[in-house]
């Protein structure tokens, strides 16, 4: 992996290139399927912001367990900016939204793009200062961490309510935002687990603390599997019980009709049952391979769930989706690989 290390400038260029390609795919090859783009955005926005959020949360609560993975997780924070910019191109495909022809004070294209972009921009800036602070282990890291978490919650809520929920306008669920920032955090944890497991197998860092980290991340993953189930259930139960057609229609199509039905069950299995059962045992929590497997399943689960949210209301082009996924994944790895480079740069910058 070390071959991949790039200087920050090169990283930037790589990012721009990849971004450009994705935008091209979206607007030249499959201009009609905005769902694909939305899928890419909603998945990676969770992954990237979540990874940073995990570190921030640990700092804010003065917990030390994540310290060995700080640099790794923080290495993704520049991508926050990348997603922000990439998001602007959603403006070219606003027709995925049903409210497009009856826009109102809140839901109208300009405001939609501006508020989301700005929010993410601010998040990036804060992430930047937070990264500096926490890597330097300075006094203010706690405050920056809290600031980051604040905006992170805001952004993820916007992602939920604006990007995804408004696909099913006028359907509304107040818990949607909560589910999203919780899932993003879930994803972040899983990434942490992956990295820890990776290190353990490569035996780069000192195994003792790493195995500790692995166990803790595993424990938290286990916990979040429960939390996910809880939130999902909280939302489902209320709608199911209330039985108001306007609300239930959203669930009915996703739970009673093929192929969404299958996607739904699989994602529940991936996001709750498997991690729950899989990580309940003491040994399971400390086996790198097993944790890696579970982690990947959870990631898959998140992807499936995003698809489930989007697909019934906006078409997704599988090939394009895969292509975009690979591109983003590559970019993601690039940043991970060359973390030392720009973290050094970061620590230089005054």
């Amino acid at each position, binding site marked *: 992996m070390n071959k991949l290390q790039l200087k920050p400038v090169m990283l930037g260029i790589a990012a721009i290139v990849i971004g450009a390609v994705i935008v091209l795919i979206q607007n030249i090859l499959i201009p009609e399927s905005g769902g694909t783009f939305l899928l890419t955005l909603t998945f990676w926005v969770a992954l990237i912001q979540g990874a940073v959020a995990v570190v921030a949360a640990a700092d804010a609560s003065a*917990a030390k367990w994540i310290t060995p993975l700080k640099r790794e997780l923080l290495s993704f924070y520049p991508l926050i900016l990348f997603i922000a910019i990439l998001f602007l191109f959603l403006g070219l495909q606003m027709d995925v939204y049903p409210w497009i022809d009856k826009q109102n004070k*809140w839901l109208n294209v300009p405001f939609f793009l501006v508020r989301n972009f700005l929010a993410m921009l601010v998040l990036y800036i804060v992430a930047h200062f937070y990264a500096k602070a926490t890597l330097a282990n300075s006094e203010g890291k706690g405050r920056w961490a809290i600031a980051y978490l604040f905006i992170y919650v805001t952004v993820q809520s916007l992602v939920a*309510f604006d990007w995804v929920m408004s696909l099913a306008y006028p359907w*509304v669920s*107040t*818990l949607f935002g909560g589910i999203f920032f919780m899932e993003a955090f879930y994803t972040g944890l899983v990434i942490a687990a992956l990295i820890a497991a990776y290190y353990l197998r490569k035996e780069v860092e000192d195994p003792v603390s790493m195995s500790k980290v692995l166990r803790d991340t595993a424990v938290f993953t286990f916990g979040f599997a429960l939390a996910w189930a809880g939130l999902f259930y*909280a939302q489902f139960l*209320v709608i199911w019980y*209330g039985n108001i057609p306007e609300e239930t229609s959203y669930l009915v199509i996703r739970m009673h009709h093929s192929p969404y039905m299958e996607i739904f069950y699989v994602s529940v299995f991936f996001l709750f049952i498997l991690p729950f059962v899989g990580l309940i045992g003491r040994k399971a929590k400390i086996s790198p391979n097993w944790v890696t497997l579970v982690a990947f399943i959870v990631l898959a689960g998140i992807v499936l769930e995003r698809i489930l949210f989007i697909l019934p209301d906006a078409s997704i082009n599988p090939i394009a989706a895969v292509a975009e996924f690979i591109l983003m994944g590559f970019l993601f790895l690039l940043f991970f690989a060359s973390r030392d480079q720009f973290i050094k740069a970061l620590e230089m910058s005054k």
Partner: protein
Amino acid sequence: MRSIDYNEQLEHEVLAALRKPNPWYWVALVICALLFGMGLTLWIYQMLKGMGVAGLNNPVGWGVYITDFVFWVGIAHSGTLISAVLFLFRAKFRNAFNRSAEAMTIFAVMTAGLFPLIHLGRSWFFYWLFPYPNQREIWVNFKSPLIWDVFSLGWVGSLRQWWHYNRLYIFLAAFATPLVISVHSVVSWDFAMSIIPGWHTTIFAPYFVAGAIFSGTAMVLTLVIPMRKIFRLEQYITLNHFEKISQVLLFTSLIVTYSYIVEFALAFYGDHQFEAAHFTYRLLGDYQPFYITMLICNSLIPLTLFFRKLRRSIVYLFILSIFVNIGMWLERFVIIVTSLAKDFDPYSWGLYTPTMVEVGITVGSFAMFFMFFLIFAKVLPVLSITELKEEASE
């Protein structure tokens, strides 16, 4: 050697609290007992006369009683959380609050448990709510949120006294955490399961759980601060402990505020006229003062805890905790009453004003709570000695 002295001194002082008899203590105890008696009398009066002695009416079928119920359940759970959750997170400052928190939980659960009975139109048939075998084979309706309450609340208090068996702690804590969350989710579902605008919303479960911890933590402060003073436990319940607990307060306050914002904003998100109408009413309608006060107490004032200075000011924390208690009580009141006062059919709209009976019973419930707590303070060590030893030794 240090550890020995510390331990003995600790035992001595903590247990000392048990011996000192103080005239004021007795005064307080008697007052509480009297008020508690008054509450009971009023309840009996209500049973004999009928629910009508309360201010409830046609649209507003629930009022102060259910508000009290949710309030007390909330407080109960903070106790559980403080001992369980914090244990799971190996948060050592927990120990200082543990006993008080646990005692508080038991008493709060007892108090809370009364209100579902008080608010029944026919309290004397309360046992119909339990699924006991009967020859007519009439069971309860497990689809009803109120039955879920019975199941989740029935036994929360019962685990407490086992918990100082430390080795069991991890297991019980592991259960207590999901338990607390589930129980308060269930309480929230008492409302969310309905279709009434202002009640029927998905965020309620996490919203109420946070609210419970919020109000409970505040109650812990309200109780521990005077106790610390009276029993001179400054050495064991330190400012650091308080700072930590007030961070929990701040954190939960933020979650609650987030929920306020989301539920309000989303009412105007789609074209949901009922939701929109309801939240407009909440903000501008007859109960506006309560709503505003609630926002100030629960969302604005706690923000001051961002300042370390205030987090470490005992007096300030005490005052704050009082405000939060008020705010959280009002939150439940506003949610319950405004939603019912104006729902779908304008013809059936109506207002609700509590009567003296309701006020009296509420006061009685507080009296009952404090009465038990006073007794506890004399009968059991207010601090968990073993746990403090453990903490000190590290």
